[in-house]
C-alpha cells in the first residue's frame, strides 16, 4: 500500500486521539434513557432531574451500550424491558447489569 495512505490514516488516528484528550467531558446526570443522546462512553445530555452522581445503571450504560451504538433519540417506555432483555443476550450483560439499567432507564437513578 502506498505509504502516503498509511501515513495519512495514522495522522487521522493521532489527531483524533489528541482531540479526544483535549475535549473534557461535561458531567453527566442520571436520566431517563428516552431523554438521552449518547455517542460514546462519556457523553450524555439530559433534561431530567436527579442526583449529579452517576449511579450504577449509568455506569453500566456507559460501559456497555454505547460501545457499539448511539442511543436512540427516544422510545416508548413500554418496550424498555424488551430492549434490555434483547441487549442482555446480545451484549452478554449480567442480571445485575440488566436490573441496574432498567432502574436507570426508568429514571430511578
Amino acid at each position, binding site marked *: 500500500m502506498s505509504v502516503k495512505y498509511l501515513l495519512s490514516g495514522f495522522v487521522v488516528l493521532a489527531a*483524533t486521539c489528541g482531540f479526544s484528550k483535549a475535549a473534557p*467531558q461535561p458531567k453527566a446526570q442520571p436520566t431517563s434513557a428516552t431523554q438521552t443522546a449518547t455517542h460514546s462512553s462519556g*457523553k450524555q445530555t439530559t433534561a431530567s432531574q436527579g442526583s449529579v452522581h452517576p449511579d450504577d445503571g449509568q455506569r453500566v450504560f456507559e460501559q456497555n451500550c454505547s460501545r*457499539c451504538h448511539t442511543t436512540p433519540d427516544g422510545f416508548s417506555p413500554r418496550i424498555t*424491558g*424488551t430492549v434490555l432483555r434483547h441487549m442482555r443476550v446480545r451484549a*452478554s450483560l449480567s*442480571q*445485575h447489569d440488566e436490573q441496574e439499567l*432498567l432502574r436507570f432507564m426508568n429514571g430511578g437513578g
Partner: protein
Amino acid sequence: MPHCRLRLPLANAARTARQIAVVLTILCAGRYGGAQDTPLLSGGVGFFTSTNGGNTTYQPIIEPLLAAPIGQHLLIESRAALLETYAPRSNGLPGYDHTFFGAVTYLQGDAILTPHVTLVAGSFLIPFGTYNERLSPIWISNFQDGPLISSLGIMSTGTGVGGMLRGSAISRQKYSIDYAAYFSTRSGNEQFNSERSSGGRASLYLPEQRLEIGFSYDRLLQDTHENFYGAHVWWEPKDTAFRLRSEFARGHHAQGYWIEADYRTQAFGGLDSFIGRFEPVFRMQQTFRRDTIVSDGLPLVNTQRADFGLDYNLPHNTRIITSYARQFSSTGDRNVWETGIVYRFLFPAWKGKSQ
C-alpha cells in the same frame, strides 16, 4: 454492501414472516398490558450508493428486527434483510438491471437460565470476532462495507443452526468476562442454511481502562475440517467520544486484520451541536493469502485498503454515511466511493397504554 445473507425467494420469505408473526401473536397476545415488555419492532431503513471501479450501484434496503419476550425468562428475536440492487448492465449496454433479495438473517429463542447463563436455540449469528454480531446492522456500522475479513470464521452463511450458551461469567467493578460457545449442525434448509461447526468467544473488559480484549475460535466440522482463530481489541478512552476498534482473524487459507477509529468532537457545543454531529472515521485493513485455495470470501491476492469516512448524525435517529476507499492489490488498485443514509426505527409492535 451491508453484510447479509441473501438466499430466500420472496415468496418463501413472506411465508416465513407470516408464520413467525402468527406464532408470536398467539404467544404474546394479551400478556403485555401496561408493562415494559411489549414486543418491539426495530431496525434500519437505508438507501446506499456505491461507485466501485467506475460502476455505480444503488441499493434501497430495510433490515427489520423483532424482539418478543415471553414470560420472565424467554425472548424470541429475529432480523431480516430486504433489499433491491440497481446495477449498470454488463457488456456496455445502457440502463440498469435490478435484483431483489430477501432473507431472514437469524431467528432464535433465548432462555435466561441463570444470572450467568443464557441458552440460545435456533438460527443465530455465529459469535466469532465482533463484526458479525455487533457491527453488521446497517444502523450501527460506520461504513457501508464490512471489513474484508468479515467472512472468516462465520462459516459461509454467518449463522449457525443449533444451540449456544452465552452470558456474563464474571462482572466486577474492575473487570468483567463474557463468553459464548455454540454448536451448529449442517443445514441445507433453504431458509436457515448453515454448516456443521463449533466454537466460541471469550472477552475480558476492563471498565477503568475502557479496554476490551477478546479471543475467538471455531472449527468447521464438515468436509475439510478447518480451524479459525480471531482476536479483537476495542478501546474507548474515558470521557471522550473516541472509539478504536480492531480485529484479527486467521483462517486455513487466509488471514487479515482491520483497525477502525471514529471520533465526534464535544468542543463546539457538545455532540448535538452542528459540528458535534460530524463523525470522521478511518479504517485500515489488510488481508494475506496463505495458499491459493479460495474458499473463504477474501480477495484472491494480498490486499490492502484504507477507508476514509465522514458520517453525519442527524436528529431523529438518522445518519448519513459517506466514505472513500483506496484498495491496493496486485490485480489492480481501485477507488471505492460510497454514500448512504440510514434511519433507525424502534417502537412497540402494537399500540397500548404506557404505565
